[in-house]
């Protein structure tokens, strides 16, 4: 009987030690893991729910950029100057001024070398009255919001006080590498050179 009792106690001890305790430990571990996974799944669902909003924002932003990028000229057989000159002369149509020359000035990279864009600049030389020059500038600035003027120099002419010698720089935003434009632009792109028309507001 004593042996029986000892054996029984031993069996109970082994059962507790080798089955019950490890099973409880596993159960606790799995329960905690299940709770953690449930939390992560809830977080994932919240993230997945935002897909529609992000998609909509992306489409709106891309559309907005597409509209503006239609004002970014493309080279014509590698040449920008022809279209730029057309644009400048078109802005002078109907004004009492003389466009003497439109010539290459430089290309600058205001954002450093890694940007998507550069600025192509031409120098324009005209003879014009002050008021006519303001109208000319207004036409250029209104036609394309990405165009900017700079380097303005106005000198009076003794022989014709009502007309001045005016030189200024006009800069257009261009693609740093037209072949590497974002895909959403090339996917729906007119690729037509910018039209030089007054009042062609974006």
């Amino acid at each position, binding site marked *: 009987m004593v042996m029986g009792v000892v054996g029984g106690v031993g069996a109970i001890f082994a*059962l507790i030690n080798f089955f*019950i305790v490890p099973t409880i430990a596993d159960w606790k571990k799995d329960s905690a893991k299940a709770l953690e996974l449930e939390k992560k*799944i809830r977080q994932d669902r919240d993230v997945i729910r935002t897909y529609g909003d992000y998609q909509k924002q*992306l489409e709106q*932003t891309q559309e907005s950029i597409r509209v503006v990028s239609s004002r970014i000229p493309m080279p014509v057989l590698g040449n920008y100057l022809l279209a730029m000159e057309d644009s400048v002369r078109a802005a002078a149509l109907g004004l009492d001024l003389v466009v003497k020359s439109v010539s290459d000035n430089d290309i600058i990279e*205001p954002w450093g070398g*890694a940007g998507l864009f550069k600025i192509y600049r031409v120098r324009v030389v005209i003879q014009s009255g002050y008021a006519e020059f303001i109208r000319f500038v207004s036409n250029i600035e209104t036609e394309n*919001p990405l165009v900017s003027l700079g*380097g303005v120099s106005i000198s009076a002419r003794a022989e014709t006080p009502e007309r001045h010698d005016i030189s200024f720089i006009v800069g257009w935003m261009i693609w740093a590498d037209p072949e590497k434009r974002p895909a959403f632009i090339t996917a729906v792109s007119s690729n037509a050179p910018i039209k030089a028309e007054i009042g062609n507001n974006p």
Partner: protein
Amino acid sequence: MNLQVNFILESERRSGSTISLKFVVRVVAVVVPTVLIMTCISLFMLADSASRTVKLREQEKKKSEPKVKQVAILQTELKDTQGIQDLLDGWKASRFEWQILLTQLQISAPVHLQLIRIAADEQMGLADNVPARTLNLALRGKVKGDQSQDDVKALRVGLKFSPAMTSLVDVVEVKRFAKSEVAEEKEEVRVFEMECKFYPRKIIPPPVKSGK
């Protein structure tokens, strides 16, 4: 003398209490294993259920992972695209509007003041470590009459403090105000030189080049 004679044998002796030790041992021998077995079965079922739940959740998580990755990719694409938008907006917003500047110059110049040279120097520089456009405008002119000094001051005030210019112009300085050196010009003609320094206008830094 009294004698106590006991005719009950040892083996026939019984306890006086209702619960005997033998009974207790028998009960314990049945109940304890039963409880232990029931406990083991319950624990096994709980553990098994928890394990299955974990496997189910892991499968669910695996299913949602590709969709979560898609959202992350979309977020990155949106950020890049918004960067391009910021760049275009920044360039547009930072340009100096020459129609306004030239018009304001015309309005601010008093009647007896004549500008003979306007020279603008626009450069790309830095403002607070951000690329920015800077502009300096140099004016040279003549003014005649008793009010010549006041006329030059009026031009300065117009360029600095008029509503169209006050947010654009940082400093306007008269660099020179002197008698004209041209012999033919009358005594009251003065020449002046003025410099306008504009506040830098920041452009937005570009996003990383996307070769998509």
